């Protein structure tokens, strides 16, 4: 591990140097295996926030109160510590810079991580495909990659919209609430644009959003790709 950066009160991003890492596509994940002194092992999957070639990769991990692995990664891991990782993994929940369909991204909490890789890939590749990000967070301080998203949203090809579920900024026009059909419909492309979608977050969030999206009849069901993190 090389360095970490605080992202939210409960999360930090982690830079790793992985010798022999072959590079990764936006949206892929890796497995982290921790082994205790008594030989007990725990394996967890984490999405990769970085994209492309090179042996330096970035994860961003939210601490789960009852987790076995995330509290260690968020609170105890120090620069120079070694981690055992397996990856890059997955070819389903990925975006390629050569893809041409408009992209709707919907994140719940730390579900932003693989979508951030897609946004970074979109930016660095110079893709002009329209991207919409709808990002559900508890409060403004729970936004991952807040400064970077603010800067990237200057692009005419990326629109970023927030949904606050517990506490909104003082001048925000909408009272804090769970993501609604109206919020999703307002951010959506038209059916004629043949958009695709990537939805990532806690399982309940992802399934609620996917059901709403199918109901809106904007997306063909198979063009809505989901990744469930588990949890509540």
């Amino acid at each position, binding site marked *: 591990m090389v360095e970490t950066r605080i992202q939210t009160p409960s999360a930090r991003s982690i830079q790793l140097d992985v010798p022999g890492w072959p590079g990764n596509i936006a949206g892929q*994940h*890796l*497995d982290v295996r921790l082994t205790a002194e008594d030989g007990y092992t725990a*394996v967890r*999957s984490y999405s990769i926030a970085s994209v492309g070639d090179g042996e330096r990769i970035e994860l961003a991990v939210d601490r789960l109160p009852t987790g076995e692995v995330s509290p260690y990664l968020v609170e105890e891991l120090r620069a120079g510590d070694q981690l055992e990782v*397996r*990856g890059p*993994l*997955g*070819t*389903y*929940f990925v975006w390629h810079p050569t893809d041409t369909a408009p992209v709707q991204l919907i994140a719940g909490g730390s579900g932003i991580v693989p979508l951030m890789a897609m946004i970074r890939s979109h930016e660095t590749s110079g893709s002009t495909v329209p991207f919409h990000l709808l990002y559900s967070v508890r409060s403004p301080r729970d936004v991952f990659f807040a400064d970077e998203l603010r800067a990237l949203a200057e692009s005419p090809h990326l629109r970023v919209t927030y949904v606050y579920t517990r506490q909104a900024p003082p001048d925000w026009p909408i009272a804090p609430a769970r993501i609604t059909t109206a919020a999703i419909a307002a951010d959506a492309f038209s059916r004629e644009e043949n958009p695709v979608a990537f939805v990532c977050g806690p*399982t309940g969030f992802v399934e609620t959003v996917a059901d709403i999206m199918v109901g809106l009849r904007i997306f063909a069901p198979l063009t809505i*790709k*989901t*990744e*469930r*993190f*588990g*949890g*509540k």
Partner: protein
Amino acid sequence: MSARVDGNALAGILSEYFRLDTTSAIVQCSGCGTRAALARELVYPDPMGFVVRCERCEDVLMIVVDAPGGAWLDLRGVDGVQFRG
């Protein structure tokens, strides 16, 4: 037991044994006939292994056991798997 996740979570364990990524492979449910990418199926992590259920009918498709000597793949509810190279 952990909460339900999905087939994306199987990429790591199966990568130990398959050359191609399996989560984009199409799985056909022998219960309802639905064909879907493994990544879309419902996965219940359990201490004994991953129980994979059909996204449509929720019948058990397969159980993936990560045993010390290697993996065991119980394909009790799968008619077939289509890999794309």
